[in-house]
């Protein structure tokens, strides 16, 4: 084996699997099942939202009008684009295009961070305008039914906050992938982790696709 400067390549196949097809199928099924659990997790909050909204649609709409539709729309575009870059990253990994993979992973992370920055800005804006009814902070509402308006904002912060938490976790995973990709990993037969992370990221995107209309688009404008 003269001329070899690296150690012999590790097998992409884990010891418990018989072949790569079995491994890939198992990894995909595992991630899909995990996403089902996430659906049930978010589902509880969507249920609470539905119940409180049906009790007072008008107030929810008025509260929703206080959210910044422009930034919410920008964020939607940003997140959907990040799903695009992620999907392309998966493809790049599968066809062994290292540079493309790294650039696309970076791009996805940049877009994800942009989303979180805009979100943080929106939160700060709410804080300044006394529309953040958490931990005893003052809540100012001039219209009718301040209690229901407060509930809207409580749900807004709970749902987008937990969504943001999932995004942060996703970015953390992508950082790990980025490091591995720069070291030459995750290509071809080793691209499983990228594919599976892509599934997770698309799910997080899908949750936002439901959050956005329910939170931003019900306001009378």
């Amino acid at each position, binding site marked *: 084996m003269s001329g070899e400067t690296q150690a012999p390549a590790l097998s992409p196949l884990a*010891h*418990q699997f018989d072949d790569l097809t*079995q491994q890939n199928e198992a990894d995909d099924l595992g991630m899909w099942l*995990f996403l089902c*659990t996430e659906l*049930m997790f978010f*589902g509880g909050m969507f249920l609470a939202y539905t119940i409180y909204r049906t009790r007072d649609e008008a107030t929810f709409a008025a509260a929703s009008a206080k959210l910044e539709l422009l930034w919410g729309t920008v964020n939607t575009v940003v997140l959907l684009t990040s799903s695009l870059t992620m999907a392309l990253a998966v493809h790049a990994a599968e066809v062994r295009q290292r540079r493309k993979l790294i650039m696309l992973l970076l791009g996805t992370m940049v877009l994800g961070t942009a989303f979180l920055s805009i979100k943080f800005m929106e939160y700060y804006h709410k804080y300044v305008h006394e529309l953040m009814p958490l931990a005893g902070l003052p809540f100012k509402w001039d219209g009718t039914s301040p209690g229901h308006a*407060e*509930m809207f904002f409580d749900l807004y912060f709970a749902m987008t906050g937990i969504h943001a938490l999932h995004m942060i976790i996703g970015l953390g995973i992508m950082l790990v992938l980025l490091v591995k990709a720069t070291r030459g990993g995750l290509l071809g037969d080793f691209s499983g982790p990228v594919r599976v992370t892509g599934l997770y990221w698309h799910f997080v995107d899908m949750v936002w696709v439901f959050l956005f209309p329910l939170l931003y688009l019900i306001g009378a404008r």
Partner: protein
Amino acid sequence: MTALVDPGSITVPDLGPLSRRNYLNAGYSVRSWLLTTDHKRIALLYLMSITFFFMLGGAAATLLRLDLMTPQADLVQTETFNKLFTAHGVIMVFFFLIPSIPAVLGNFLVPLMVGARDLAFPRLNLLSWYVYMIGGLFTLYALLAGGVDTGWTFYAPYSSTYSNTYVMATAVGIFITGFSSILTGLNFIVTIHKMRAPGLTWFRLPLFIWSIYATSIIMVLGTPVLAITLLLVGLERMLGIGIFDPRLGGDPILFQHLFWFYSHPAVYIMILPSMGVVSEIIPCYCRKRPFGYAFIGFSSFAIAVFSFLVWGHHLFVSGQSIYAGMVFSMLSYMVAIPSAVKVFNWTASLHKGSISFDTPMLYALGFVGLFTMGGLTGLFVAALAVDVHVHDTYFIVSHFHYIMVGGAVMGYLGGIHFWWPKMTGRLYPEGWARLSAILIFVGFNLTFFPQYILGYLGMPRRYHVYPPEFQVLNVMSSAGASILGLGYFFPLTYLIWSLYYGKRASSNPWRATGLEWQTPSPPPTENFVQTPVVLDEAYDYKRMDGQLAEGGAA
């Protein structure tokens, strides 16, 4: 890679089990245990942890039953009593029953039964155990720091606003441990789908696998709802978000719906695996295929599906609409049917069998009797007008203990005994084991049967002090509990004893069918020297016994 290994034949030579390399002696360092990805070692890690929690929960129960011998508060202060029954419930439900069979027997047996080298995600499996331990330690901290007194069901607004005990720490502990459940279920589903040995079709699978699969579906879909419920309670406590407290604009009944949406299916997580164990034990000790294999298998799925549709039967007196109550009542009767199907099929399995009464069989038959009784009392509480009277009384307490202890724990112990030789390479002393099984059965009935009567008389649950006319039945119950507690100590003792002094076990001391018995006791780390190929139907005891009559290997 594959060779023709016929599970109906005995092809594994007995080389004196523990002198050769197996998963137990593959490494002796602490590191090799704490960083293992071997599903069998992880199963033993779980076994030690849940036994610890069982003893803790049992200690709480002992103190409760001691205090309840008198109508007054004689042993502990009321705050302590309330913390004790909360601890008992939280520990027994989340840290003992829910993991028990899936995490110990499931982890150990699923790859062996399907002919695989390990589960689909071995490292995730280890993570599951660590997540369970971290959650357990959080909860232990809450207990030692001062306890929590909300009851294991921690209804809002008491838990979200009023209680000044360690609700947050306990909720965090349970939240974390829930992920252990989710990841284990996920692992099992993928393994059963993707890693069965060649020839192992769905209808050749052992019934234990069917029930573990159904359990895993509930674990995966139900546990996240508990997670979000706990999270919302935490947010309400910490940030004042008014989801459940009416003073903050919330709805306390919403908590009950969310909580029971998980916690009802959770009780089926606790019983389905035990049913699977019974379905393995009965055919072995009758030497014949179980009656109605397909129906037993499908009933596990039916139970899993229906389990998600009945949660409202916990809210019959809460203020839920009466029409919703009627729907939930009807569905609750329907969920009972698949369980009845199992009981009838198990009974029919005895017909024309060749029955012996070894310890696992005693536990299995005890299970059938006690589960039948507990399940029948389910019919009582599903009846709306009766439930109005018995809800939140000792009738309910007895109903669920008949199923959880008379059912699930007996099934767990039966399974531990049945697969003990496989897991450890040792046999336990049969005489002591049978005595313990009988002691547990008798002690159990003495403890919990009086509680049905107490409940219908009207004694509410979670009561520290009670009217004096309830004392006689309480004393009977506590006396029974002392026998039951004693009964639990025996297996603890002789099973540990057997590790050092028990007779060595062959690969298949019970001459059972199933791939797990076609490998040495204890198995090598990789489970099978060569991946088995399955040619026969499951439970082919006729062939197994026929070959033995002919003198051994085909």
